[in-house]
C-alpha cells in the first residue's frame, strides 16, 4: 500500500486503518475515514487530499486530511475523511421542490465540491424530487435524496463520490477458496413493521391547527399520511419492534410505497453474516454477493462494511446484511479421455449461477509414460439448476513423455492446439 499527498508518495507506511461502509437502506450517508502512520519526518498540512493506492496503483481512497501530527519524531499519524465530511459544513436554504430534476438538486448539494466531485448512475437520470427540504446541511439533503431514490453512496475505491442504485439483481460469488474459516451467522430481532410517513403540500395560509412550512418566500400547508407494512413472518408472540421513518419531507404519495417496500426487504430479513475473505478490492460495500457460510451452504446479501488488513494481498472482514439462504447444488466436472474418466472435481454453486470454470491441463503419470492432457474446450460452462449439473470435458493427449532406460528420454508431440499451430516459431516446452 502507498500514500500520495501532493506530489510526494510514501511507501513506508504502517497498515492503514481503512474500513469503508455504506448504508444499503439509503437512509444514512456514512462518513468513511482512514487512519495511517507514515514513517517520515516530513510535515504534512491538513486540508488537502490524501490518496491511498495498492501496489498495482489502484485507488482505494481519496480522502481529505483532517489531522496530521507526529506521534514520535519518525512517525506521522494522518487521519482523513471522505469528501462527504465536507458536505456537513455546507448549510442549504429551505426549498420546495416540485418535480425538480435530480441533476439540479445534486448540483446544489455538491456546490462547494463542484460537479467533478460526484457521479450519479444513469438509471437515475430522469428521477425528480418533489417535496419540502428545510434548512439543512448538504450531507443531510444528500441522505434524503438517497432514501427516496433507493440509492447508496460509494465514497471509496474511487476519486468521486458515486451515487449508485441498490442493485438487487447483480450478484457476485465470493469463491470458497477466498473465504477464511469460518463465517458466522447471527440473527437480529424481528422487526414487526415498517412505517413511512409521506407528505404533501399546498401553498396557502394555514389555519392555526395546520402544520405548515415555509421556504422563506411562500408558506405551504403540510399534510401527512402514514404507510405501514407489517412483517408477515413475525410470530405474534414477539414484542412489537417497528421501524419508523418520518420527517423526511420529500417522501410523498408517489415514492412512499417503493421506499416502504425497500425498507421492509431490508428489515424483515433477520440473518446477518460476518466473514473474512481474501479481498484485493474486488468485493466492496454496496455490492450484493453470494458467500459460503459453510462448505455446502450459500447465502446472499449486501456488503455493508469491509475492514481491511494487509499482507502482499489484502484480507477483509465483511459484514453482510440482510442475508437470505441461497439454494445451492453440486456441479460435477468430469475430465474424460477416450471414454475413460481421468479426473473429477466438484463445486457447490448457487442455483441460477452461470458458471465458467477454466479447464486445466492435466499432468499425469500412467504406466511408464508421463502424459500431459489438454482440454478440448477452454472452460466448462453452463448454468446451475436444481438437482445439480454434471459436465463432461473431453481431453486429448498433448505430450507423451517416456523416460527411457540408459538415459534416453523421448517426448512425443501428439497434438497441438489450433492457436499454437498458427505460430511460426517452434517453442519447446521444458519437461523435467
Amino acid at each position, binding site marked *: 500500500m502507498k500514500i500520495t499527498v501532493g506530489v510526494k508518495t510514501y511507501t513506508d507506511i504502517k497498515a492503514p486503518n481503512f474500513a469503508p461502509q455504506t448504508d444499503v437502506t439509503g437512509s444514512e450517508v456514512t462518513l468513511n475515514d482512514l487512519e495511517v502512520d507514515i514513517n517520515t519526518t516530513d510535515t504534512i498540512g491538513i486540508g488537502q487530499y490524501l490518496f491511498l493506492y*495498492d*501496489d*498495482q496503483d489502484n485507488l482505494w481512497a481519496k480522502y481529505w486530511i483532517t489531522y496530521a501530527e507526529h506521534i514520535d519524531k519518525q512517525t506521522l499519524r494522518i487521519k482523513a475523511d471522505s469528501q462527504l465530511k465536507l458536505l456537513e459544513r455546507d448549510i442549504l436554504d429551505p426549498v420546495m421542490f416540485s418535480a425538480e430534476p435530480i441533476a439540479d438538486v445534486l448540483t446544489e448539494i455538491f456546490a462547494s465540491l463542484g460537479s467533478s466531485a460526484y457521479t450519479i448512475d444513469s438509471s437515475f437520470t430522469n428521477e425528480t424530487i418533489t417535496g419540502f427540504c428545510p434548512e439543512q446541511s448538504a450531507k443531510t439533503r444528500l441522505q434524503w435524496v438517497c432514501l427516496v431514490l433507493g440509492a447508496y453512496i460509494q465514497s471509496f475505491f474511487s476519486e468521486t463520490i458515486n451515487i449508485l442504485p441498490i442493485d438487487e439483481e447483480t450478484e457476485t460469488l465470493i469463491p*470458497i*477458496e*477466498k*473465504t*477464511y*474459516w*469460518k*463465517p458466522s451467522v447471527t440473527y437480529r430481532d424481528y422487526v414487526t413493521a415498517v412505517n413511512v410517513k409521506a407528505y404533501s403540500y399546498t401553498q396557502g395560509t394555514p389555519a392555526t391547527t395546520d402544520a405548515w412550512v415555509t421556504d422563506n418566500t411562500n408558506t405551504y400547508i403540510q399534510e401527512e399520511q402514514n404507510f405501514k407494512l407489517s412483517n408477515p413472518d413475525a410470530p405474534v408472540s414477539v414484542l412489537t419492534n417497528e421501524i419508523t421513518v418520518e420527517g423526511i419531507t420529500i417522501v410523498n404519495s408517489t415514492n412512499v410505497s417503493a421506499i416502504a417496500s425497500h425498507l421492509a426487504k431490508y428489515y424483515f430479513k433477520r440473518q446477518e453474516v460476518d466473514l*473474512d475473505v*481474501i479481498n*484485493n478490492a474486488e468485493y466492496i460495500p454496496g455490492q450484493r454477493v453470494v458467500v*459460503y457460510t*459453510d*462448505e455446502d451452504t450459500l447465502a446472499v446479501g449486501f456488503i455493508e462494511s469491509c475492514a481491511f*488488513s*494487509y*499482507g*502482499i*494481498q*489484502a*484480507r477483509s472482514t465483511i459484514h453482510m446484511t440482510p442475508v437470505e439462504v441461497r439454494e445451492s447444488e453440486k456441479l460435477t466436472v468430469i475430465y474424460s479421455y477416450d471414454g475413460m474418466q481421468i479426473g473429477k472435481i466438484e463445486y457447490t454453486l448457487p442455483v441460477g449461477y452461470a458458471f465458467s470454470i477454466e479447464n*486445466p*491441463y*492435466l*499432468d499425469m503419470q500412467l504406466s511408464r509414460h508421463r502424459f*500431459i492432457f489438454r482440454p478440448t474446450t477452454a472452460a466448462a460452462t453452463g448454468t446451475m439448476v436444481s438437482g445439480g449439473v454434471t459436465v463432461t470435458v473431453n481431453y486429448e493427449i*498433448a*505430450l507423451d513423455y517416456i523416460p527411457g532406460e540408459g538415459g*534416453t*528420454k*523421448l*517426448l*512425443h*508431440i*501428439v*497434438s*497441438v*492446439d489450433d*492457436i*499454437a*499451430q498458427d*505460430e511460426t*516459431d*517452434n*517453442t*519447446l*516446452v521444458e519437461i523435467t
Partner: protein
Amino acid sequence: MSWSIDGIEWTVPCDILRTAEIKPSEISGLLLNKRYFNDVLGTYMAYEIGVAVPFGKEDEYTRLYEILTAPIGEHTFIMPYNQDTVTFLGRVENVKDAFVRIPGGKKYWKGLTFTAIANHPSKTMTLGDVLSIGLTPLPTSVSIPVGSVWELTANGWEPYTAPTYTDFDEVYF
C-alpha cells in the same frame, strides 16, 4: 570468511549461522476449503555470528563491540550468501560476550556473538506476481509439428531419429 558492517570488513575468525525466515503476513490463515492460505511477505535473512578476536587485538574487539551496540535502527551488512555475498539493511540483536579474569591479573572479553537481522526481505513478490501465479497450470504454446518425437540429449531436446541396424556394431536376429 569475511563479512562487513557499515562498510567495515571483518576478517577475524568467526562462526556464522544463517537463517532464512519466510515470513507470512497477518492475513495468512485457514480457508473454508481447508487449505491454508499463506500470504508470504518475503524472505528475511538473519545471521548469528560468533567472533573470535585474537589476543593482542583488543582494540579491534572494542571497535566492533561499539559498532554493534550503537543505538541506531539500521546497519548495512554484507554477509556470505551461497557462493557469493548478500547486502542488506538490518538490525542488530542479542549482542553477548563474556568477561574473563585469569590468575596473574590478566583480564579480557571473549565470545562475542550477535545476530544481524534483515529489515527488508531479500526476496519478495509484488501483488501482480502473486495474482498471476497458477493461472496457467501447464504450457499453452506448444507449437511443434504433430507426431514428432524429440529426444533429450546433452544439447537439450532435439528431434529424435529412430536407430537403424546400421547404427549398431553387431545385430543379432
